[in-house]
């Protein structure tokens, strides 16, 4: 056994040595003064570490403090950010509402005007088209609410920058 192997066997393979290896290490240490130093140093290190193993008690309110902070983090968590593509259904909804109103207005208006002419140009069956557009508008708004967390119909907090906090 060589002195260079002692550190490996003594330290890096702690607890994994078989009986033969352990016997060989002990024999070598008895004959070699530098390895005796190595073994004493290892023992000193282990003793110092054991001395330092005592740990004070944690503060009693520690758990509560962490839970309070975690609850605050949760409450201030960034809301679902509306990305640009999610605005498209909303814009289409608004256009749909506007166009439906336009169609209805032109339909009820006695005198021909530019709006009725536009609508006449595009559609023949105004009431049905208007109703269909209104239904489509509400369907788009409903899909927004359910799948994109947009806030047209519900009372969720707005995406006002003041309400956003980053962690």
């Amino acid at each position, binding site marked *: 056994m060589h002195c260079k192997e002692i550190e490996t066997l003594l330290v890096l393979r702690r*607890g994994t040595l078989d009986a033969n290896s352990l016997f060989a290490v002990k024999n070598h240490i008895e004959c070699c003064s530098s390895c005796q130093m190595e073994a004493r140093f290892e023992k*000193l290190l282990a003793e110092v570490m054991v001395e330092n193993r005592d*740990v004070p008690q944690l503060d009693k309110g520690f*758990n509560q403090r962490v839970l309070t902070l*975690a609850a605050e*983090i949760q409450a201030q968590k960034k809301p679902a950010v509306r990305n640009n593509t999610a605005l498209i259904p909303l814009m289409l909804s608004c256009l749909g509402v506007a166009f439906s109103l336009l169609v209805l207005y032109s339909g009820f208006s006695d005198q021909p005007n530019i709006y009725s002419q536009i609508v006449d140009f595009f559609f023949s069956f105004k009431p049905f088209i208007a109703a269909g557009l209104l239904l489509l508008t509400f369907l788009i708004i409903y899909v927004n609410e359910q799948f994109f967390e947009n806030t047209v119909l519900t009372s969720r907090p707005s995406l006002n920058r003041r309400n956003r906090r980053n962690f």
Partner: protein
Amino acid sequence: MPAGKDTDFILIDKLQKGDLDALEQLMQLYRDDLFKLAYRYLGRREDAEEILQDTFLRAFQKIGTFQRKSSIGTWLYRICINLCITKKKSNQRTAQTISLTPDESTNSVAFEPAIKNAPDPAHFDLQKIMQHSIARLKPIEGMIVTLYYMQGYSCSEISEIVDKRINTVKTHLSRARQKLKIMVKPYELHIRE
């Protein structure tokens, strides 16, 4: 580290839903072990409590990024170890900037003056010298020494905890021991006794 795989999965699922009871359960399971590690490494109760708090809060915030490749305990240990190492580096930088003489309250690294000023080696405190020497090691070396000697983990367990190869862990441990030997060398006579 406590908790089996099934408990882990249930706990992780609850944490991902933001369940604070699950966070409390996690703290009950791992708080003491992590505090011991942080205290033994940093040497100060205030620092250790701060690190422990940050560990759990970070785990709560980042639970969505946990990939379940290891146990949640190992993951918590890694967070704690990284925070401890960052704190140690910050403490060492502060101590070097201010050039303090050895001061246990700040876990200072200015150790040499203590040896130079000690008139009689027989009056020194070998325990304190060893503690100061360990504090002077590189943060990762100090952490591995703490895990190996104080927490009692084997090299393979340490390699899993710190997420480094086992040979890297052994190299760090070997280098740390060499450095400690050099620092304690002036007091070799007392070690011979």
